[in-house]
């Protein structure tokens, strides 16, 4: 019977092409608008380390001013970076399976290949534990060891794009790259790693692209660098780099991976003990309020997805509902206009269930057509966003891409929406009293 229902649906929809086009357009526009927003929201709401959410952690401690918190409106909104002395203390304790301090900066790159001009590259100074902790994929080689960290080894990990830029398609492991006037041995090339959001360093926005080069953390300190993202102080740090390192200025990200989720309480107790100890030394003047985030709670707490994006998604969902109500009205008009046909079908032996299936099939066909056109509208909407914001000009432009999951979700939402829209008209169609319709025809 399903084939018969499809055949009838196709005939019915062809019979009144304008009404059919209006219904499909209503669904397609609603789907297009809502899925465009949802795609951006979903991309922004992603958690690149969801599979390790229970073990990869980000502590937060409140070393801010005694009289004025980091966020005066929210006492639980703590500094989102660490001081050097605190991060180093946590790192040196080696209490976790992996731990890494990190900060971004830029260094000049002098390519050996004279055809490539020198340029400034973004660099993340970090510990070697970051690579296994963040499950970073490697095309060639790997990260560096703790011994290399401790020994200030001149080693570098390159992004794949940087490797291809400097060395072409060849494996550069063992080759050197000249950075900031110094040679570094290439030990690893990442294989397309660019997490969205840029969860490990969100102080200057959650959606910048991953760095081009990765160097041992201590080399950044050796070069007396600070962060190219954010450096925040609540009091004058004093003169000189030593004073900077000893200050209460926050500028470093610190991440760790526990052996297992059950170690979380123990690590949190360690942080509390450390801060309590520091309080005795006159630091941490504010009440004890340490936090120990998972990646997801960290992203939530840092409001990586702006309220505007959420509002936009809700608005477009409301628009979809308006479109669906419109479709319900159109379907209802269409089905009720065929009351005598329904009466006739019931009289010659169609059960209510069969009438329901027939008309729901018709609604489903409208939904499939709406889904297909809705996908095109969604792709168009996302292309429009990229054009409007620019692919390098912000998160919305960068993330406005339709992936396979969203294509499937869009199609399913469109079909589900049109079937939902078709339910009431179909139910009304089933309720038609055949006797009345047959006599009145």
């Amino acid at each position, binding site marked *: *019977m399903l084939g*018969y229902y499809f055949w009838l649906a196709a*005939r*019915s929809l062809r*019979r009144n092409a304008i009404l059919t086009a209006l219904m499909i357009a209503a669904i397609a526009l609603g789907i297009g608008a809502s899925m465009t927003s949802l795609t951006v929201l979903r991309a922004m709401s992603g958690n690149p380390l969801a599979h390790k959410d229970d073990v990869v952690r980000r502590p937060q401690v409140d070393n801010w001013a005694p009289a004025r918190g980091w966020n005066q409106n929210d006492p639980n909104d703590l500094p989102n970076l660490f001081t050097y002395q605190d991060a180093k203390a946590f790192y040196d304790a080696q209490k976790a399976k992996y731990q890494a301090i990190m900060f971004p900066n830029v260094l000049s790159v002098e390519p050996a290949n004279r055809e490539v001009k020198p340029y400034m590259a973004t660099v993340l100074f970090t510990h070697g534990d970051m690579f296994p902790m963040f499950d970073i994929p490697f095309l060639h080689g790997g990260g560096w060891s703790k011994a290399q960290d401790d020994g200030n080894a001149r080693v570098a990990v390159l992004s794949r794009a940087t490797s291809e830029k400097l060395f072409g398609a060849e494996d550069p492991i063992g080759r050197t790259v000249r950075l900031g006037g110094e040679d570094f041995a290439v030990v690893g090339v990442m294989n397309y790693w660019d997490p969205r959001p840029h969860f490990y360093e969100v102080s200057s926005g959650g959606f910048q692209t991953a760095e081009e080069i990765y160097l041992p953390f201590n080399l950044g300190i050796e070069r007396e660098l600070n962060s190219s993202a954010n450096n925040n102080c609540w009091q004058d740090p004093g003169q000189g780099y030593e004073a900077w390192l000893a200050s209460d200025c926050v500028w470093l990200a610190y991440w760790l991976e526990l052996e297992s989720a059950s170690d979380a309480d123990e690590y949190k107790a360690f942080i509390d003990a450390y801060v309590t100890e520091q309080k005795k030394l006159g630091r941490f003047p504010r009440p004890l309020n340490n936090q120990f985030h998972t990646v997801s709670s960290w992203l939530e707490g840092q409001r990586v997805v702006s309220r505007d994006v959420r509002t936009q998604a809700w608005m477009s969902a409301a628009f979809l509902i308006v479109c669906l109500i419109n479709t319900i009205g159109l379907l209802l008009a269409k089905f009720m206009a065929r009351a*005598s*046909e329904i*009466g*006739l*079908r*019931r*009289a*010659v*032996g*169609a*059960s*209510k*269930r*069969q009438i329901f299936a027939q008309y729901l099939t018709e609604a489903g066909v409208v939904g499939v057509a709406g889904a297909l056109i809705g996908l095109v509208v969604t792709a168009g909407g996302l292309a429009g966003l990229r054009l409007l914001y620019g692919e390098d000009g912000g998160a919305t432009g960068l993330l406005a891409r339709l992936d396979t999951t969203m294509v499937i979700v869009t199609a399913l939402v469109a079909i589900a929406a049109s079937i939902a829209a078709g339910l009431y008209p179909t139910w009304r169609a089933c309720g038609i*009293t*055949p*006797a009345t319709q*047959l*006599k009145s*025809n």
Partner: protein
Amino acid sequence: MLVMRSLSKVYRTHLVETHALRDFNLTVRDGEFVAVTGPSGSGKTTFLNIAGLLEEFTGGEYHLDSVDVRGLDDNARSRLRNEKIGFIFQGFNLIPDLNLFDNVDVPLRYRGLKSAERKKRIEHALTRVGLASRMRHYPAELSGGQQQRVAIARALAGEPKILLADEPTGNLDSLMARGVMELLEEINQQGTTIIMVTHDPEPAARAHRNVHIIDGQVTDLAGAPPLRNATEALVANG
């Protein structure tokens, strides 16, 4: 074929109660051609709707081809309608955007017959009403009499035990009406029971028996013909 005993039908609204049928008793035997007459509002259409399982009744008994229809669910009633009853309506009730072949196909689709069997039945039914050559035409391309013949073909294709006709000649001129009546008589002669509701005395006169309804009750059962054969006598209600 059809037995109604003490049947009643009451339409209720929050303001008023209307007794469309009351203590309605009727027996129609296999192979009969019964005309049901009566003034407007007497309950003829209500009777036909109940007989055709298009409406529930309030009280009494109704047996169709020995099946007690009381309490049957929608699926069972639909199946019974599909297998045992053919409808012919005053307004023909053809689906305008289906051609004659597909219109006649409608009840067969719900029977679940194979495509080849449906095709055979449709062609046979349309041949029987003299419209085999026009099976790809649409209803709007036919005269009223031809449309009613298509409706009859649709009813016949399901090979029903009983044909229920509601004013089948009501929308036709006298020439076309005569043609339709001749066709119904021919169908009846081939063994199909026919119950026809009509206002018109001329077609009513061609039936074997006239049943007159006034105020929801049968008032006259005159004119019952002799049974055609022994088999009919056995199955006839007694």
